[in-house]
């Protein structure tokens, strides 16, 4: 593993499988009375959230706490950021407080990269969603969920067909998923109206289509992306209702999917828009399980980034890690 997790592209096949296998072992913890491991005792994880988030922040917080790390939650609202503090000064403050890892969500694509490579902080940086760029832990939990249902919980996703539907243009989930699923050998098809594909999507390791119905019959997993209503005023689609008719997953469309195929959604859902309510609650919908798996996957990521010595990155942190000295 590298020192930071900024993009799904940071993970080669072995790294990705290591995260998924580790998460599979950690998932067993959920069933226990004592849901806690001492592994990250004395280490500090800062959740640095410049954008609103419920599940991702709670998920990271639960993951860090189950590994016994100290968690500091920072949200831009009600902080010095609203007084105009820059990312740099916020980072320097966190560094002075001894953060071993910073989990960052930011509206600007590339903010985690900036934080990781500017030399402002010495710890690991985990991207929890940056702008319209990436959200790698979401991709990992999606892959983990698919592997559980489609590959017996082991190995990669070689040859599995995944259809991702919706607002690819604004979706960091789509980009991270495409990169990770391609690494794991799955065949991904993105489906969206022409206006909601980003420029350069033809260079992504996936197929694209404008027609949902033709990509349901052979899909092993169908993932709906949230219709980002806050961005729909720019006339990307004529109306929400038309979008829903052509790209929403309703019961009738779901019935054309193979029996084993699963329905996924990264949340939060707009019921009745990209996903019909009865589809969201159908037995083959794994949306709630995705949330549960998110904690296991984020525990795995935090453990692999923070649990051992920091080696092989060329960063001068190795001495500290070797002697166990907390700087």
């Amino acid at each position, binding site marked *: 593993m590298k020192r930071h997790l900024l993009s799904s592209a940071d993970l080669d096949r072995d790294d990705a499988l290591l995260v998924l296998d580790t998460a599979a072992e950690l998932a067993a913890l959920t069933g226990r009375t004592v849901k806690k491991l*001492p*592994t990250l005792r004395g280490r500090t994880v800062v959740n640095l959230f410049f954008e609103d988030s419920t599940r991702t922040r709670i998920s990271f917080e639960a993951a860090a706490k189950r590994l016994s790390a100290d968690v500091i939650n920072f949200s831009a609202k009600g902080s010095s950021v609203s007084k105009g503090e820059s990312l740099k000064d916020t980072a320097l403050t966190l560094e002075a407080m001894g953060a071993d890892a910073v989990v960052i969500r930011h509206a600007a694509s590339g903010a985690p990269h900036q934080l990781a490579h500017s030399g402002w902080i010495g710890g690991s940086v985990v991207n929890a969603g940056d702008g319209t760029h990436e959200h790698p832990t979401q991709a990992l939990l999606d892959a983990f969920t698919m592997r559980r249902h489609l590959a017996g919980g082991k190995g990669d996703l070689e040859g599995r067909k995944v259809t991702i539907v919706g607002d690819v243009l604004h979706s960091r989930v789509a980009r991270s998923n495409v990169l990770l699923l391609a690494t794991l050998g799955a065949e991904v098809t993105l489906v969206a109206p022409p206006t909601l594909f980003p420029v350069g999507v033809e260079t992504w390791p996936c197929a694209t289509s404008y027609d949902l119905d033709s990509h349901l019959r052979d899909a092993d997993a169908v993932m709906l992306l949230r219709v980002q209503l806050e961005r729909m005023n720019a006339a990307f689609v004529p109306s929400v209702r038309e979008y829903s008719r052509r790209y929403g997953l309703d019961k009738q469309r779901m019935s054309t999917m193979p029996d084993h195929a699963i329905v996924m959604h990264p949340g939060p859902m707009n019921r009745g828009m990209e996903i019909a309510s009865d589809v969201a609650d159908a037995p083959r919908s794994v949306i709630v399980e995705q949330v549960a798996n998110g904690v296991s996957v984020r525990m795995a990521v935090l453990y692999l980034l923070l649990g051992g010595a920091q080696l092989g990155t060329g960063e001068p942190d190795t001495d500290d890690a*070797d002697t166990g000295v907390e700087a």
Partner: protein
Amino acid sequence: MSSARTPDDTRTVLDGAEIARALTRVAHEIVERAKGADDIVLLGIPTRGVFLARLIAERIRAIEGREVPVGSLDVTMYRDDLRRAPARALLPTQIPADGIDDKIVVLVDDVLYSGRTIRAALDAMNDIGRPRAVQLAVLVDRGHRELPIRADFVGKNIPTSKSEKVHVRVSEHDGDDAVLISGHAGAAEAEAR
């Protein structure tokens, strides 16, 4: 992997038949100490401790005529040397369905050395339940303890030098059953297992 070690300085200290006899004796001792096989749970420490635990369970079934639950307990997350090496992959933990509360848990490992693995195992067990008693069975006790821990059941005591390495091979995992010692002073590279 590319060390200049010749096959000559690896010697066999236990062969398959000797391991089988040692495990049979250990199984008898476990049953004798517990006055039967009731309430016994065998927890192997991955990787090879799990195979040894299964072999001991087979023998207890032959002696007492009843199944003994066998599980595995990975101690990676509880190790005290985690931060001295890059994060390790986790190994399977499988606790038998009836749990370990009020049971007599026999931890099974291949080699007892510093005792640090067993300390970690005791911590790990603490988070899973509260056994009535915990005992330790090992195939090889090679000495050099760094913690106040001893085994209740020992297949064979093998005095070693710290610079030597003890390799346990079990047929389900390595193709054959044997305990080997390799390396002399100078060839020492502390490899965990």
